[in-house]
């Protein structure tokens, strides 16, 4: 599996995908819908999947001494590892903001979402939407890219809107704080987000592997 994963990163991973990891830095921007970082990353993934299609990566991978479902696993791992890299970067940013910028007026008066612990939970859920909507649709045909991205977008945008408005609801304003004393609610959101990410990604992998097994290439 490690060798197959190296193949993913080396032969089909587009530099654009790796560059877009740096989009995590956009979570520092006040008055900006910072959840779009996940959408930017999904565009990066889409470029890699397009590269894979144009270079006949799937057809090549099938003739290698690997099981058909291992090809699905490698692609999922490729996506998940990059998502985890972004989550780690975001965690770093959230930590630095909490330590050095917790009294910043810019963030205190930010009507849009601040990058905090709850934001990490929202990001995890947005990633799970990509893994579920895009990847399962992709492995139905291993060639069509427009429809998976459309379905993903139709789910992602309303989700971003809901999360952006959540902290404006009565009783939920603490969700947007970058100060430590409001951690409990935010940690709850983070844990729920991570749980959804793990569960949906595992289920999506199984569904994708099943679809891919019967696919004619």
């Amino acid at each position: 599996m490690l060798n197959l994963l190296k193949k993913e990163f080396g032969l089909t991973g587009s530099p654009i995908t790796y560059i877009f990891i740096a989009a995590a830095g956009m979570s520092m921007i006040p008055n900006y819908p910072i959840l779009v970082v996940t959408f930017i990353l999904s565009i990066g993934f889409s470029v890699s999947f397009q590269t894979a299609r144009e270079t006949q990566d799937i057809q090549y991978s099938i003739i290698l001494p690997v099981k058909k479902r291992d090809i699905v696993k490698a692609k999922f791992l490729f996506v998940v590892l990059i998502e985890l890299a972004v989550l780690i970067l975001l965690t770093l940013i959230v930590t630095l903001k909490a330590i050095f910028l917790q009294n910043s007026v810019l963030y205190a008066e930010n009507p849009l979402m601040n990058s905090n612990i709850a934001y990490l939970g929202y990001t995890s859920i947005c990633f799970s939407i990509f893994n579920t909507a895009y990847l399962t649709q992709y492995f139905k045909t291993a060639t069509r890219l427009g429809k998976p991205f459309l379905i993903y977008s139709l789910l992602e945008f309303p989700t971003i809107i809901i999360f952006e408005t959540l902290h404006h609801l009565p009783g939920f304003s603490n969700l947007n704080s970058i100060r430590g004393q409001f951690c409990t609610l935010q940690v709850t959101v983070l844990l729920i987000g991570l749980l959804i990410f793990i569960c949906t990604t595992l289920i999506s992998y199984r569904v994708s592997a099943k679809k891919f097994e019967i696919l004619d290439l």
Partner: protein
Amino acid sequence: MAVLTVKDLCKSYAAFRLDHVSFTLKEGSIMGFIGRNGAGKTTTLKSLLNLVHPDQGTIEFFDMDFKKQEQEIKQLIGYAAGECNYYPKKKLETIVHYTKPLFERWDESAYRNYMQLFELDDQKKLCELSCGMRVKFSLVLALSHHARLLILDEPTSGLDPVSRDELLNIFLHLKEKGISVLFSTHITSDLDKCAEDITYIKKGKIIASESMEHYIDRFRLVVLPQKTDMDASKFIGIDHQKNCDTGLINTEDEKLFRDHKILVPDLETIMVHMERGDMIC
């Protein structure tokens, strides 16, 4: 020992069906898989490796069920579908760098030898190679991990006559080492050079799977006057030539045409008449 046993392989599409395809490939033999365009050669070969998911049938390599031991089997076989079009903007060296760790029996010196034999430069990108060179590279990948069975889909297409001859000599050399080769082609002269067995597929059905010599010996060619008015149902197929017509018959019917010139056909002639048989009104 059979290195490949295919039994009752079926696959249905809207306008085409592989219908109970069955054949066996013996160890250390070279089999030509022939048929006209659209007969089902590529679909069959793809089904062997799960590129196409069969509706039913069993496929065994080296007495191992492909469904249960896919990974182990793929270590022992090499597959090439004619021209290699994978990762066109990558250097050959890069493609090999990520491919070879996956094969337990990758042989770097064999790889270097084949690259030299085929005059391939691994610093070149795939898109910089000609069609024929890409075919050669796909064969290098297949040959460099000591596969015991090579499955090749039209490997000689796009090759110049010298390279084609080179490749067929390599097949003969591999046969001496006990490696089996199954290759599809419609260049029947390739089979004359190196294949001892053939499997003939027509409209998704296997109509013959036997030694080439025995298959050819089953037929005779009757030379007929041009625009003959003979009953076409007496022949398997009739072909119209410039100065005469020719009709394919079974060898046992030879005595019915004692007044005519009888020839022993070659494989290409048999194929042409077989296919024409469906077109006779």
